[in-house]
Every structure is written in C-alpha cells, then in structure tokens.
C-alpha cells in the first residue's frame, strides 16, 4: 500500500516467518513430486492450492494448475462431459484458489494471470468478477493489477465504456490522487472518441467537461501530479492534428534552384512531416521531371533508429545526362499518389493529398577538384552582415510562404483556441497564489499550444513568457533541469525561425568568395545555450551551420539537413561518438568541427545502451571494420567512431579538446578519412 511505513520485524514475526518458510518448503517438495509425475488427483490439487495460498508468487505452481485443468477436462468421462455443471465446478474451484491467493497478496502477477486464463475459458459470471474487483479496488484504489483486470473483464463481457467511465468518475470522486483511475479514464475516452460515440463527437463538449473536471483536482491540490498528467493528455487531445501532414520540403514549394554541373546533376529531395511516418515509396509519392514520371525512385527515412520510419525522407534525383540543356529550366513536380499508404506510427493514414513543384536550372561551373583546398575558417572575422538582395534570401522566403499557405489547411477551429485560452487564464490565476512547478510547466505548454495554433496570425506572441517560465523551472526544479533546458531550446529555436526577419538576423555572409562547400550564407546559432535542436522544417535549406558555444548534448534532427556541408559543433556537451550518429546521414558534409566537446568523458553512452558493444548498437555492425582494423587491437576500440565517420567524405575536421582524442585516435582518423586535408588546423600531406 502507498505511504505506509514498513515496521521492522519483531522476534515474534521472525519466528512466524521461519515457520512459514518451513511449511512452504515441505509443501513445495510434495508439490514438485506431483508435478514431475504428472499427478493431477484431487489431493494433489488441494496440496497445490495450499501452497499457492501461502505463496502466490510461485509461477511453476500456477502452470501446474493449468496443466491439471486441461488434463482434467480431457480425461473426464462422457457423462461428465455432458454435464456442464461439472465443468463449471472445475472452473469455480480454480477461481476460488485464485481468490484465496489474492487475499494473501493482491498484487501477485501469477494469480491475476491465472484468473485471466481461467475466465477466458468462459463459463464465469461477470457479476462475480466485478464484485471481486470492487473488493480489491477498494482495498487499494491504485492497484494496477486490478485496473488491468478490470479492463480485461470489461472487454470480455462487453461492459460499455460509458459505464466504466462512470466508475472512474466515482473512484476519482472518492480520491482524485489516483493515477490508475485517470489513466483508465483516458483509455476509455480514447475508445469513445475513436468510435465517435454519441456525446463524444465532436470532441468539443466532452473536452470542456473534462477540463473542468480535472481543474477541480489540480486547483484543490496543485502538488498532486495525477490530475496534471490527465490534463496533459487532454491538451494533447485538443491540439493534436489527427493525421500526419507534410509540413516542409527541400527544395521548397515554388522555388528556383540552381545546380552546378559536374559529371552528373544530382540533388536531394527531402520531405518533412509533422511526425514520423512510414510508407514513403515510389508507390505513394510521384516524382515528375517535366513530363517524365520517375518510377524507380528509392526513398529512405532519415532517422537514427532503424524502424523504416522517419519524420524526414530523402531521395536523390538526377537529371539524365542526355537531357542536359544549360539554358533549360526543369520543372519538377512531387505529389502524393496514394497518400493513404503513408501512415503515422500508430497507423493513421495521411489522407490529405499534397503536392509541390519547383524549378531546377543547371549552370556550368569548373569543378573544384583541381584547386587546392584552403582551410575554411568559421570565426566571427569570416563573416559580414547579410545582403538581403542575395537570391538565397528569396529561397528562404519561400519557406515562410509555404508555411502560411499550408497553415490554412490545418487552421485550428475556433473552439480549440477558446478552450486553450480559457485554460491559460485559469492557470495564470493558479500561479498567482501557488508557486507550483507542474503548474508553470502546464502554462508553458498551453501558451506554446496557443501560439502554434495562431502562428499565422500573430507569430509567437507568448515566447518571452514561455522562456521565462522555463528559466524559472530550471532553478526551481534542478533534478529535471535538462528537460526544461531542452524545452527552452526548442522554444527559442521556434522564436528564431518564426519569421524570415528573425531568421535573417542569424544569417551571415562569408566575406571570402563563396565556395561550393560553404555556400554564401552561414546560419549562426552559436552561443544561445541550446541543448538540443528543433524547428528543422524551417532549416532544410541550410548549407553552413554554426552551433558552437552551446550546450548541445544531442544533435538529433540534423540528419534532415541534406545540404549541410559545413558544420561547427565546437564547444558543446556532446559526450560520445554515438551522439554524433545523425552525421552519418549527411553525405555532403565536408567540414566538421567537433572540437572541445566531452566525447569520451563518459566511457559508456548510457542514453543508448548500458553496455558498449558493437552487438548492441542500433545500426548494423559493419563487417568492413574488421577488415579495416586488420587485427590491430588498438583500433578495435574505435568502432563507434568508425560507424559515424566511416561513411563520410570529410575534408576538414577539428576534433581536438575531447577526452577520446589521443595520438592513436588521430592516426586512426587519418587512416580512415582518405579525403581529409585539414585535421585540427594542420594540413595533411
């Protein structure tokens, strides 16, 4: 039970437990003998029941009962078979044993499981099961075994969701500090929503009622978290877009891109969704250049896990060599074919069709290859303020235009805004008298939800307030500081990317003549105390990115920036090579600075796995590594670095100032990266 201190054992108790142990041992020996000899007589079952009543945790004993149950059903005589009362009596006996075991320990997994098994054989009364449940749920209202079993019975016996919902209301009225009851409520309401049951569709009315219901709980006791968790679920129900939506792409809609011609014209196309999706293929997405439909296109998810899904998907298109025409502008059209084949991870199809087009022109440039590659400097001195007339800014503009046109489609209905506005007013009031962490967090979430719904009209009206709330939370609740920091970073990035004007403030122009590697503009998000990256949908165009002097511990999300060729991550808190995993997807990356991080300061990346081994890594172990290491025991330890850097074609790398970097490692890098020209400021020959 919750909140009840355990008493230390008295000598009397110890004696009693010694006696109990002796009794269990003797019963156990006899039981195992029966079990081994497949004896399923009445006496044997009684012995087993006695054992389980004293020790309900004994799984073998429950399994024996299942065997006995089936044995006794099969071996019964024909007369008994005809007699349904006989079967019923066998089942009743099982239920009785379980009930007694539960009286000993109402949280016994084995006992509850056995009951499920028996009840699913049929022939049991709903009434009795509900009575039993009421007893156990009264004894401990948060007994999750009982709640689980309740859902099982409700499903088996077709008890209506409405009736069960009323039960959760009653339980919450008795004591609202009950996670299980709130949770079951959210489960039941999800069911009703899905069925579009009467009274639950549209969801506006029920959401209003539920917000009021849970408000009573959080206002009565703001320190009790169970209500807040439910509130979070409600907020999610209010704001969530019901299906996956394509929110951004590279190249952006209606843009003109200019490609240098080398031996072939090849460029990436990135589709970016509001949530991870699966099912992007040449069947679901049509790619058309001029009038030719490209059939054999392979889309791959950009994701560091390997489940065949991702928020971003990429393919590389090339304009066939024979069609080259320097004066020609190629019209490329990409549209969803059967968008129902594209689904979210929970299986919801992206049922709204989408399409976008852009134009590609080709220009003839001398290839860089013959020229010597000078070290690219990414310090303040290398940049000057941006010339807004650059045609790159036009490209940028199309991101914001794309956003607004798309926004109209997902414009939230008025009631959602009103609902959230109402919630904001209430929680602002609560915070005037209660200095409560979870209240602040909720307000921050509500404000962001409100902004995300209205962003086309009044962009990011509450950002300053939200940032302030997260800063306060970092001080107020240090154990969860990292979480607040991450949220802070995401909000800050939302603000930075909220409009073209604010984004341009962070765009700098290279003083030197732009090379094909750096491009002409560098997005500098340095020294912003960022701990993670977000708002990727607005950054797909970025070629040069400066994230130095932040507090990044993860760069998840960067994998979608397929144009990225120049990346500065120096002076951050990246703690392992696996934290650099997203870099594996950046095939255009030429210049990388990861100097002055914390790589190697933690021997094991506990974020990923507890035991560092190639076998437990999320990506397949590359057998080429062994070939590469060639039995060199010194190199075998570098397999993590190998998986990140092995596939990259880096020309310049700064990695000094990390614990993992020593002479051996440097020579490993030199051996691995053939194209490397500069390493930690030294030119390589």
């Amino acid at each position, binding site marked *: 039970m919750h909140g009840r201190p355990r008493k230390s054992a008295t000598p009397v108790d110890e004696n009693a437990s010694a006696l109990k142990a002796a009794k269990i041992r003797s019963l156990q020996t006899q039981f195992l003998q029966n079990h081994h000899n497949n004896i399923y007589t009445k006496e044997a079952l009684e012995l087993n029941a006695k054992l389980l009543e004293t020790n309900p945790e004994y799984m073998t004993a429950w399994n024996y009962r299942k065997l006995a149950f089936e044995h006794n059903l099969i071996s019964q005589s024909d007369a008994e078979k005809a007699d349904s009362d006989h079967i019923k009596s066998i089942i009743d006996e099982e239920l009785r044993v379980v009930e007694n075991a539960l009286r000993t320990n109402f949280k016994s997994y084995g006992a509850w499981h056995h009951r499920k098994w028996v009840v699913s054989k049929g022939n049991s009364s709903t009434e009795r099961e509900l009575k039993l449940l009421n007893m156990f749920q009264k004894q401990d209202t948060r007994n999750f075994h009982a709640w689980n079993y309740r859902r099982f019975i409700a499903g088996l016996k077709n008890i209506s969701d409405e009736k069960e919902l009323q039960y959760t209301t009653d339980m919450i009225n008795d004591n609202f500090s009950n996670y299980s009851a709130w949770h079951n409520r959210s489960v039941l309401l999800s069911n009703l929503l899905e069925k579009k049951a009467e009274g639950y569709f549209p969801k506006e009315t029920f959401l209003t009622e539920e917000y009021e219901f849970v408000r009573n709980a959080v206002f009565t006791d*703001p320190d009790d978290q169970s209500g807040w968790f439910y509130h979070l679920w409600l907020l999610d129900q209010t704001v969530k877009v019901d299906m996956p939506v394509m929110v951004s792409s590279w190249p952006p809609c209606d843009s003109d891109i200019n490609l240098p011609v080398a031996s072939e014209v090849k460029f990436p196309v990135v589709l970016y969704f509001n949530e991870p999706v699966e099912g992007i293929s040449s069947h679901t997405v049509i790619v058309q250049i001029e009038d030719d439909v490209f059939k054999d296109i392979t889309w791959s998810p950009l994701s560091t896990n390997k489940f065949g899904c991702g928020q971003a998907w990429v393919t590389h298109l090339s304009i066939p060599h024979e069609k080259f025409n320097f004066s020609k502008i190629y019209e490329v059209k990409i549209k969803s074919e059967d968008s129902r084949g594209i689904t979210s991870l929970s299986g919801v199809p992206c049922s709204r069709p989408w399409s976008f087009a852009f134009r590609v022109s080709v220009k003839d440039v001398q290839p860089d290859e013959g020229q010597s590659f000078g070290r690219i400097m990414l310090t303040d001195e290398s940049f000057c303020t941006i010339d807004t007339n650059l045609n790159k800014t036009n490209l940028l503009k199309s991101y914001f235009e794309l956003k607004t046109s798309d926004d109209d489609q997902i414009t939230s209905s008025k009631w959602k805004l009103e609902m959230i506005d109402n919630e904001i007013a209430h929680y602002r009031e609560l915070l005037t008298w209660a200095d409560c962490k979870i209240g602040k967090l909720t307000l921050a979430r509500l404000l962001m939800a409100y902004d995300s719904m209205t962003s086309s009209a009044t962009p990011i009206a509450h950002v300053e307030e939200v940032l302030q709330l997260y800063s306060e939370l970092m001080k107020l609740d240090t154990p969860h500081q990292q979480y607040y920091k991450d949220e802070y970073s995401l909000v800050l990035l939302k603000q930075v990317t909220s409009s073209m004007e604010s984004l341009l403030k962070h765009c700098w122009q290279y003083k030197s003549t732009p090379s094909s590697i750096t491009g002409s503009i560098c997005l500098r998000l340095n020294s912003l105390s960022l701990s993670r990256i977000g708002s990727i949908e607005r950054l797909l165009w970025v070629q040069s990115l400066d994230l130095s002097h932040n507090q990044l511990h993860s760069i998840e999300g960067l994998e979608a920036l397929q144009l990225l060729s120049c990346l500065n991550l120096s002076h951050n808190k990246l703690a392992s090579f696996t934290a650099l995993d997203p870099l594996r997807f950046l095939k255009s990356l030429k210049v990388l600075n990861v100097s002055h991080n914390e790589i190697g300061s933690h021997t094991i990346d506990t974020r990923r796995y507890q035991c560092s081994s190639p076998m437990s890594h999320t990506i397949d172990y590359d057998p080429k590594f062994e070939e590469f290491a060639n039995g060199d025991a010194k190199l075998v330890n570098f397999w993590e670095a190998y998986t990140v850097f092995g596939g990259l074609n880096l020309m310049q790398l700064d990695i000094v100032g990390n614990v993992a970097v020593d002479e051996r490692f440097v020579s490993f890098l030199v051996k691995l990266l053939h194209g490397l020209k500069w390493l930690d400021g030294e030119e390589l020959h």
Partner: protein
Amino acid sequence: MAETESYPPIDPTNFDLIVVGTGLPESIIAAAASTAGKTVLHLDPNPFYGSHYSSLTLQDLVSFLNSHSEIPKTNSLQSDDTTIVDVNTRPLYSDVEISSYDDSLEEHSRKFNLDLCGPRVLFCADLSVNLLLQSTANQYVEFKNIDASYVGDGNGNLMNVPDSKSAVFKDKTLEYSEKNQLNSFFKLVQGHLEAVKSVDVVIDAEKIISDDDLESPFVGFLDKMKLPPKIKSIILYAIAMVDYDQDAGESCKDILKTREGIDRLGLYHSSVGRFPNALGSLIYPIYGQGELPQAFCRRAAVKGCLYVLRMPVISILLNKDSGNYRGVKLVSGQELSSDKLVMDPSFTITSSKCLQNISKLARGICITKSSLKPDISNCLVIYPPRSLYPDQATSIRILQLGSNLAVCPSGMFVFYISVVCDDALEGKKSLHAAIDGLFSVHTDQTDSNELKPTLLWSALYIQDLIEGSVGPVVTTPTPDGNLNYNNLLDATSMLFKKLYPDDEFFPETSNTDSSDKLEDDSEVVLDS
C-alpha cells in the same frame, strides 16, 4: 411513592463504590472501577438507564422533561457517630415548551428513541470511540455514519461542508481559488500535526507552526493565512465546531486558540476514513445516544457491578467527627456503606452550596415527515454566528436523523437543535430562528413552493450546565453543549483519577489480538 415492600433489599451492604444515576459519566466510572476490581453498586431512581444521557420514547421524554419529583425527606436523624444529610433533586430542565401539530404522533410514541442530550454525534477518531474500543463496550453498540453536513444561511440555503480533500474536489459551489485555499490550509495543518509527531526533527521543523501562532487566536491565524470569510466560517464553525462568534473581538466569551483549532481539525480529518466502511467523519449509534451509557453499564455488569434501577437514595451518611462520607440511605430504608460515592448532577446534598450563575443550554427536538435534502437521511446543519439574525452570538447546530437509525418510525425524521446561551430568552430566540429557517409550520395546506419540511411536533427546553465536582461525594457533569463527548470524557477520567489515583482508567489489555484490532480499526461495528 411506592410501598417500601416493593423495594428489594440489597445484599451485600458494603461496597467500594456506590454510583447514583446511570448517565454516561457515571456509567463509565462504574465500568472503569469494576474493571479495576472494585466492588460497585450502581443505582438509578429512574426505571431506565442513561439519566440525562438517555434516549426515550416520545411520552417518556415529555414526562421526564417535566418531572420535578421530590425525594421524600427523612427527619434528619442523628445517631452518635453519623450525620444524615438529605438528598435533594435539582431539576436540570426549565422552560419546557412542547408543541404538537399532529395528534397521530402519539400512537407512534413507542417507536421513538429521542435523545435528551442531542444533537450529539461521535467523530470516528474521538475519545469516545477510543474508549469504547479500549473498554470493549463497543460490542454492545452499532453505528451508522452521518451522510453529510451543511452550512446554512439566512436565505434558506444549505451549502455542503467541504471537509476533506475529496469533498473540496467534488464541491460545486466553491470557486477554484477557494478550493485551493481550503485544501492548502488542510495540508498545512496536516503537515504540522505530522511534523509534531515525527521523529525527524530537522526535516520537519519547517512544517511546524510557530508557538506564537499556536497561542494566538485561531481566527487571527486564519486571517494571517489570507483565508476569505466564507472559508474561515466553514473551518471555524462547521469543522472545528466553535460555539461563539470569533470575530466579535473582546466581547467573545471563548476565543479558540490556534493550537486547539488545529487539534479539532486534526480530529475531524483523522476521523475521515478511520473505518473503511464509514464514509464521513461522524457516526451515530443505532437506537440513539442512550445506547452508550447502557453499553458501559453492561460492561460494568460483566465485571461484577451490581445494578438496581427504580431505587432513589434519600440521604447520605457522613461521619460526624470528620464530615467524611460513609454511606447512603435508600428509599427502602436500607442503609449501605461504601468508601466512595458518585452522584449525577441532578442530586445535591443540602450542605453543599447552591451554585450561582449557572450557564445554560437551549435544546430542541423536532419531528417532521420529510428530510431537508431529498436523498439524505442523516445530516448535520450548522448556522454560524450572525447567519440567521444580526445579533446571533453563537453557532446553532442541528442534527437530522432518519428511521434507519431506529430513532423514529419510518417515513419520519428527528431533528436535534442546540445552542449555548446566557438565558432562556436568548436561547429560545436562537432555537426559533433555526426552526423558522428549516421548517414550515403550516399544518393545513402547503403551497407548492414550500420545500421545507413541515413541523409535526417540537420540544424546546433549557438545560443547566453543571460541571463535575469533587467533595465529600463526587458529582458528575451534565451533558455539555458540544457535538461530541470529548470534554465530558476528559472530565470523567479526571474524576476517576481523583477517586482512584492508583488505578488505571481502562488499562490497555496486553493481549496482542485486541491491540491489532484497534490498529486496523475493524472493531467498531458499522451497519451499512
């Protein structure tokens, strides 16, 4: 008076203790003394148990309220070594006012069990429940819980008392901010009470309310915590059950200190959920409060106490030289001797001084055919000071009980009202205000708008408040104006300590079984 022959002789004639009157304090003393191994004779001039704590039929109640029976005088005979002092009765009730609007009630007279000391309830965690468990007298009584409590105002509204976290959550009338304030205060008090009990001094020190605050008036502390008037009134009058208007400043007779206020809140909250089958914090004994003295009498009888009802004591025998008590003379003429004598407060001996300026209590009993709230059978209603009329100085408490408590015929409801007062006039004024607020008195036709229960019968009376005293004989206290028995039980155990300084008042049984039961609290039988 009946013939002498009708009084049986009592044998033996010598006891450690003689107790006269079977009210709750006397019964507890008799049970405690018997448990401590004393020989006890328990007498009562009445034909029923319970004296002023009894529950009676309608008829018996009326005649008891009006009785002024005189005890026959002896001619103060003097013997060589003994002074004989006459026992006088001191009527506790005055200004008795019976009104009947429905003659049919008389037929049901015997189906009523009306409390003389109502309104009275037990808090699940209070002293009386502990004492019942400790003395094992609980086996003779069953309880049901009081379903709800309300605060009333002058406009006839009854507002639910949000008395616990879940009640605050469920309440439909409080603003969200009020919910927060009320529950925060509950938590503050709970934190304090836990911290005081806790061993972990360092961690819990900050949760303890300072001594300065504890010694200051509770009402001031509530102000300091910035609680609005509505919440303050709920806490003071409907949870802490304060009598006098705490906002009256200097003129308030009894200012509750924070320490006491917090203890009362603690008692209320520890009562909620003490017994798994009792929903609220208050319980009431089936068949009426009169069951409690009877339970202790039965307990005493089991321990060897001798019981004789209908047996008045007419005089007290004192040692001529020392003036010390030595025995009693019964109406039968028999003389009995004992070391100690305990009498209920309606008896005085001529030699003792007559008490002046006795404080008063106005009580009322009403009977109706309908409940204040359609779905609620048993409930408590509080009218805080100044809620019914401007100069209402004390809070008025009303207890509604239905037939499921076996106190009235089915389909009827009994209401007990009480209020402390300076004089009969003021007391009656309060009672009438409450009655007007709750009931309608139209006997013939009722207009459809009238939702108030119609009054069938009422009895209003003023009761003297007399505290227990120790002299040559020990006198027990009269029923007080509180809702529970806590103060009475404190006084009773003090009297017992004075009587028997070396004996324990219901020693805890060393039997581990019973202590276990005390802890999981399965002992008090609640009939649900």
